[in-house]
């Protein structure tokens, strides 16, 4: 490998220096890092909010905050986690960095639009901050902004809603950029079935983003319009129908769940074969299941509304469709496990995190079926069971995929290695804390404890205390993981171009990559997960 200047030392466009080299950059790698710091900031904020919520619930009655504050905090926790962390996290950070490289090209198709998306993201974040410190107090509607409360509440809902609108634009433009890059910038010799699975998953995600995001945009616009002009489109007194709001809202927000999980699945599909030293099982099945999830996932939104009073026919149809989504998801889980079967497994922190992902995501998926079936759903609707279910998928799934991606690509992005032992401890603690935190919520939910309630009956106290205790374990685990990663900046143990023995294109270039990614023409393999060469290399080293 020729020694080359990394993108840190080469501004793009050329000539920019200092902070300008970052703020006006067109380089997808610099943008990815800028996203990373902003997203991590919001993640930590929302995590602290979550921890405060669970601390409040650890004992009956008032513990550390009043009920209004509690309502605001769960709203903010939801809004920030969804719109500022989970949706952008993997596509904006790792997608921006690695999608062009995995396609064998030098940047995304619209580099300036990419920069614009980043500014929209920051702008949306600033709006969210403004909504906190202006007007008549924090928004307290819950992240779903359900009418009529969101229209009538005195709190600062309009600004928060506008923030969500802007963030939606940002994620949609990123999706648009990825699709165009995928089709027009891909190396000419790379056929569709030679594309790495992470990029495939981002492609499927991008379609959902473009398909669904405008619906939330118009819904949020309507909330603001209603607040300003009180037309009454969702107000029964004026002839409106509040249920229609729920339909419009979930028409986006359910597909958004797949915007969140699909990139995570893509990350896992990269990590599992690398550390099993074995070609991924069912490459085509995984590609097709990504697309199938994107399509089927767009048609299941009303399963959030079984108790809203819609007709039995729609309840039946949406329940059936919901069950269909489980099939492509299961195809992926089985493919990952089949990949590991008889592989030559090498344990590393990213693999451990990926394994935790598979375990937690499976639980999240299976409990999703409980909620997808109408009978049990009516029993546990709006209880802690639901809270636990979607945290298993969003956090146990996407969250852990995000951590896994951080540990997997960290050496490539920064050119340095982190310490394995601390990473293991952090990951294991996060996993254990996670189970302590969320399993009690399943039980609480089945016993009938509603979500979003400030106080509860004495019989729920043990469960809530355990959950709070788990929350602290979880946060300590995450803290250890992050501190360990950040310590690597201090020690600066250089990482080789391919520390893991991986096969996709990003591992063929130096760490960190040069500004145009490829110095010489990338060598496109016939099949992206062919480990025969890696195996030969290892054998030679052993001799």
């Amino acid at each position: 490998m020729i020694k080359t200047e990394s993108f840190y030392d080469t501004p793009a466009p050329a000539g920019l220096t200092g902070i300008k080299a970052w703020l006006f950059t067109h380089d997808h790698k610099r943008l990815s890092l800028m996203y990373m710091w902003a997203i991590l900031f919001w993640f930590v904020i929302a995590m602290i909010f979550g921890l405060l919520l669970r601390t409040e619930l650890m004992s009956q009655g008032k513990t550390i905050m009043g009920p209004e504050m509690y309502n605001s905090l769960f709203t903010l926790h939801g809004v920030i986690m969804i719109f500022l962390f989970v949706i952008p996290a993997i596509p904006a950070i790792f997608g921006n960095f690695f999608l062009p490289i995995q396609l064998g090209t030098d940047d995304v198709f619209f580099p300036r639009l990419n920069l614009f998306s980043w500014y929209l993201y920051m702008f949306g974040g600033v709006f969210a901050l403004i909504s906190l410190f202006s007007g008549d107090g924090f928004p307290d509607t819950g992240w779903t902004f359900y009418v009529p409360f969101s229209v009538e509440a005195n709190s600062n809902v309009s600004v928060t809603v506008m923030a969500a609108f802007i963030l939606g634009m940002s994620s949609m433009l990123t999706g648009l950029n990825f699709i165009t890059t995928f089709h027009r910038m891909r190396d000419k010799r790379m056929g569709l079935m030679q594309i790495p699975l992470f990029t495939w998953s981002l492609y499927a995600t991008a379609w959902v983003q473009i398909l669904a995001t405008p619906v939330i945009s118009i819904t949020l616009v309507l909330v603001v319009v209603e607040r300003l002009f009180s037309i009454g489109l969702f107000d029964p007194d004026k002839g409106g129908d509040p249920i229609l709001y729920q339909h419009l809202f979930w028409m986006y927000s359910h597909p958004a769940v797949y915007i969140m999980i699909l990139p995570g699945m893509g990350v896992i599909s990269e990590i599992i074969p690398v550390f099993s030293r074995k070609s991924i099982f069912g490459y085509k099945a995984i590609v097709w299941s990504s697309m199938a999830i994107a399509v089927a996932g767009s048609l299941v939104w009303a399963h959030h509304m079984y108790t809203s009073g819609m007709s039995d026919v729609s309840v039946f149809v949406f329940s059936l469709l919901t069950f269909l989504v489980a099939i492509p998801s299961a195809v992926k889980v089985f493919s990952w496990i089949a990949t590991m079967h008889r592989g030559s497994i090498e344990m590393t922190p990213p693999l451990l995190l990926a394994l935790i992902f598979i375990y937690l995501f499976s639980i999240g998926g299976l409990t999703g079926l409980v909620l997808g079936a109408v009978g049990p759903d009516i029993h546990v609707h709006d209880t802690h069971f639901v809270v636990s279910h979607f945290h298993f998928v969003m956090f146990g799934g996407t969250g852990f995929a995000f951590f896994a991606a951080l540990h997997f690509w960290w050496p490539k992005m920064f050119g340095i290695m982190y310490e394995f032992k601390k990473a293991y401890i952090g990951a294991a603690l996060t996993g254990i804390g996670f189970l302590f935190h969320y399993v009690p919520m399943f039980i609480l939910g089945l016993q009938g404890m509603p979500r979003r309630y400030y106080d509860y009956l004495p019989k729920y106290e043990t469960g809530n205390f355990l959950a709070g205790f788990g929350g602290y374990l979880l946060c300590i685990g995450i803290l250890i993981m992050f501190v360990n990663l950040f310590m690597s900046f201090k020690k600066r143990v250089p990482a080789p171009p391919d520390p893991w023995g991986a096969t996709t294109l990003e591992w063929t270039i130096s760490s960190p990559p040069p500004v145009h990614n490829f110095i010489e023409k990338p060598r496109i393999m016939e099949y992206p997960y062919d480990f025969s060469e890696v195996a030969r290399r290892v054998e030679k080293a052993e001799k």
Partner: protein
Amino acid sequence: MNKRIDKTGIKIGMWLFLYSEIILFGGLFVLYAAYFYKYPEFFSEGGKELNRVIGTVNTIVLLVSSFTVAASITAIQRKAKKQAVLFLIFSILCGVVFLVNKYFEWGAKFHHDIYPNSETLNSGEVGLNIFFGLYYIITGLHGLHVIIGMILLSISLVFVLAGKVNESRFSMLENSGLYWHLVDLIWIFVFPLFYLVL
């Protein structure tokens, strides 16, 4: 980055964006459908109060302007800069005419105390309130798109005058033109839904 210009790629990006705009209006059309089903008689009553003449004039204005935008793109490809400029100015003027008409149309409604949260609508039938609410939101959002389209066309006009848009690089003009066609296309659906079928 500027060495190669992939016009197809730029167009793909633009079409994806236009598609998202259609979905944006799609949400409103869903509301229209649901409420039309719920209040058919009030929709027909409200629809009769809308001014068909102004609606028709506006439709013609937009269709003509769509043609002139397309003509200006062809003109620039044939290196006829002056023609292109004239066609563009005419299209922007059409946009102005459309908005002026809209202003008079809305103004007349306001004059009759028909606007969101007005006394007449609040105390009258709820079906009528929903109809006019949708009317204001949909035509209002469309009007906003007309304004955005005019801004885009104006920017393209400046670029044409400055020579930045020319026979070999006209993606900016072409995409602004596409956006203008979208504005037109949405109106083609809005017009019958509010003025004709009811």
